[in-house]
């Protein structure tokens, strides 16, 4: 029977893909590469994952019930040769049955809604505790600016926040802004996504329960290089975070050996777009470079922060990230080497 074949095949497929889902989640289970929404590491992500499992179970039961009904009627009421062309009994409907399959789904909707509304309220209306860290995240085409107003820190693309243990909760509250188009802040393990919209400040929070690097990326299409607007959140232990803050609050290191590179940097348009705190470079258009070497990546996570990549990036950003708004500066080889050396002193 073709149709029963069709359905057994579909069931097999379903089982296969559920297994595949688990398998795909497993290998990344503990590494930094994991971005599954079902491996939460903070309260909002955890309550979303719990609600999601509940909704999955309810919808799964509905699926099985209706699918069984469909399968049964397709198999049981298939036309047979022995029918001899006679028409079956003509049934026009039944009010009782209609009422039943109106009321039961309505009750299910009420249950799902109440469960959902609870989580919405718990996440969105959570008050900001006294010990919370405030960070302003600003979306740019195609990178992230992070400002810590109370700590006087400005950095880019790699957000550092403290781990929040239940004894001393130190959640991070983000204010989300954008200078150009819409973006969306999404680190699946830490929280659901929230958009960064110009003229429309948003807020979100997270309280990571364990240290580590959590990956995410811009989720709202923001232009040519939306794909390489990646995001890293480093969750640090209390001491690590304190020492990171201390280091970031300093002005740029003055290194006499890199003075040639600094001259190239200040003679060209570099300083119009980038800040190097303590020098004349005070542009606001691109990422703050004061502590560039404290970051693991460049170009909003598109490349590792290595000598080779830095040189490649300054020579022609479009090789790594076509559509990036940073222009190729067409520096001579000597100038290029000098400016890369200068960058490498900015710890």
């Amino acid at each position, binding site marked *: 029977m073709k149709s029963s074949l069709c359905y057994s095949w579909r069931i097999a497929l*379903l089982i296969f893909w559920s297994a595949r889902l688990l398998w795909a989640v497993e290998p990344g289970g503990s590494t930094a590469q994991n971005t599954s929404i079902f491996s939460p590491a903070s309260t909002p992500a955890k309550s979303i994952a719990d*609600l999601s499992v509940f909704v999955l179970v309810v*919808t799964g039961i*509905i699926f099985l019930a209706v699918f069984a009904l469909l399968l049964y009627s397709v198999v049981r009421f298939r036309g047979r040769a022995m029918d001899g062309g006679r*028409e079956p009994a003509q049934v026009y409907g039944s009010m009782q049955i209609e009422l039943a399959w109106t009321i039961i789904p309505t009750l299910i909707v009420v249950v799902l*809604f109440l469960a959902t509304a609870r989580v919405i309220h718990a996440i969105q209306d959570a008050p900001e505790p006294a010990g919370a860290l405030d960070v302003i995240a600003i979306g740019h085409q195609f990178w992230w600016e992070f400002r810590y107003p109370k700590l006087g820190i400005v950095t880019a693309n790699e957000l550092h926040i403290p781990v929040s243990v239940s004894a001393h909760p130190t959640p991070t509250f983000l204010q989300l802004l954008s200078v150009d188009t819409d973006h969306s802040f999404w680190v699946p393990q830490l929280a*659901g996504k929230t958009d960064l919209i110009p003229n429309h400040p948003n807020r979100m929070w997270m309280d990571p329960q364990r240290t580590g690097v959590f990956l995410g990326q811009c*989720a709202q299409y923001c232009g040519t290089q*939306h794909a390489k607007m990646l995001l890293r959140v480093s969750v640090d232990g209390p001491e690590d975070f304190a020492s990171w803050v201390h280091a970031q609050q300093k002005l740029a290191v003055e290194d006499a050996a890199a003075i040639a590179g600094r001259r190239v940097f200040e003679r060209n348009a570099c300083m119009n777009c980038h800040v190097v705190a303590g020098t004349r470079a005070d542009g606001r258009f691109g990422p703050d470079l004061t502590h560039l070497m404290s970051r693991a990546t460049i170009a909003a996570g598109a490349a590792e922060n290595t000598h080779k990549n830095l040189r490649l990036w300054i020579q022609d950003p479009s090789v790594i990230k076509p559509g990036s708004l940073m222009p190729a500066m067409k520096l001579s080889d000597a100038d290029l080497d000098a400016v890369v050396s200068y960058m490498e002193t900015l710890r």
Partner: protein
Amino acid sequence: MSSNAITIPGAQIEARPWVDELHLWLTTVDHKRLGILYILSALLFLLIGGVEALIIRIQLMHSHNNFVSPEVFNRMFTMHGTTMIFFVAMPVLFGFANYLAPLMIGARDMAFPRLNAFSFWLSFLGGLLLYFSFLGGSGLYGAGSAPDVGWWSYAPLGARAFSPGHSSDYWTLALLVSGFGSIGTAINIIATILCLRCPGMKINRMPLLVWMNLVMAGMVLLAITPLSAAQIMLLIDRYLGGHFFDTQAGGSAVLWMHFFWIFGHPEVYVLIIPCFAFMSEIIPVFSRKPIFGYPVMVAATVCIGFVSMSVWAHHMFTIGMNSYANSFFTLTTMAVGVPTGIKIFNWIGTMWGGRIQFKTPMLFSIGFLFQFLIAGLTGIMMAASPFDWQLSLSYFVVAHFHYVIVGGILFALFAAFYYWYPKMTGRMLSERLGKCHFWLFLIGFHLTFDVMHIPGVLGMPRRIYTYEPGRGWDTLNLIVTIGAFIQALAILVFLANLVISYFKGAQAGNDPWDAWTLEWSIGSPPPVYNFATVPTVASRRPLWDLKHPEDPDSHYE
């Protein structure tokens, strides 16, 4: 109903020179020819939009692929979405509505035949205008480019600061022009159904297809008009110094989202309700039973029509609405599931106790039921707004709405093609090729769109032209791409079937499926002006009454 209405053959038309034939097609105001033109233009754009989808899928086959540049990729997904919604799905559904609604209510044409032709040509030329952007898109800036700001063109990305040149103008104007066409057709469908029903065709005796297209047309009027308004506002922003959506000058990006989605969500129902209509005609005929719960089906459709007007902001759960707004749109979105569920139950109720014939139209209908069930349930998941904060803007959403549009709408459309092609051409589509088409497409569909949910859960955002290795996304994306090519192959089988059967298919006769609605009472293809004698009906299934004079429906209604 008088029996002579079903025996009068189609008027014999002598062969004309091809120039005359072409002239006839270009100047026609006949609802049947216009219906076919709508369908053919949709098939043309389906091919183009399909090729764009394949380009997207090749690029995403593995991480860090360089098949196309980010600029080209962004144009491809913008054009794919715009084409499939505005120039494939809507025209093909309008085509079927145009062709079938007058026949099913015993009318000789649409209420406004010339408006009908005008609307079709507006829509079609809107599509050509959109594709002309490949030649003229960037204006003075370069050799031409298609729009690349997404089919939703979120502000301020569509503003001149971020979209210089003319590519976004082609998008705006194409949607504006075809939008006027849609509004014209919607008015026409409503007027036809309300005013041109034959004697005895009371509003509670109309076939469900007619009922549902009436609701669809009403929704088009309510949904397309805000889109057209928003397009005009965008043009004012771009050329007349307006600041509606210009965020640099204090305009509102969120306002555009509201405009777009108050169009965009009812639009989903504009597309799916005519597919419910196909199901409500095809499933009864191949189950050999009348539709289960006709009045409830009508009520559920009207209910969906109203409730779906209040769910639009579920596309905007991530934009930072307050908790009350998020709760409200969670509730309305979940509530739409109730009347939709009622429909699925009624179709199963129709099959229950029937004698189901597994002809190709019925196979596609069963596929529709199965897939639409899943699409509805993933919709419920995303209606739970916290769940949506994770799933929104990810590949899970892409999989969900393709489950609706391909697994639901396209499967229903294939069912409709196999069911009504004999009426339109006088020839049957090949069952062999049809079954081959069905199984290939089913396998390709599930390979693509079942798997596509998973990268979304694993954190893969949509609209990215490339992605990093090592996230567990590579294998999944490769499988999705393979599935897409199997679907493409199935579409080629389908097109081959359309062409081959046109010349070599078996003669259909008036009524190949032993069906019950009025279109099957006249020749295939139906003669000009359809009915030699205007029929009179006494029940919802006039041909059943005719075939079973001992036990007519009219005794029970």
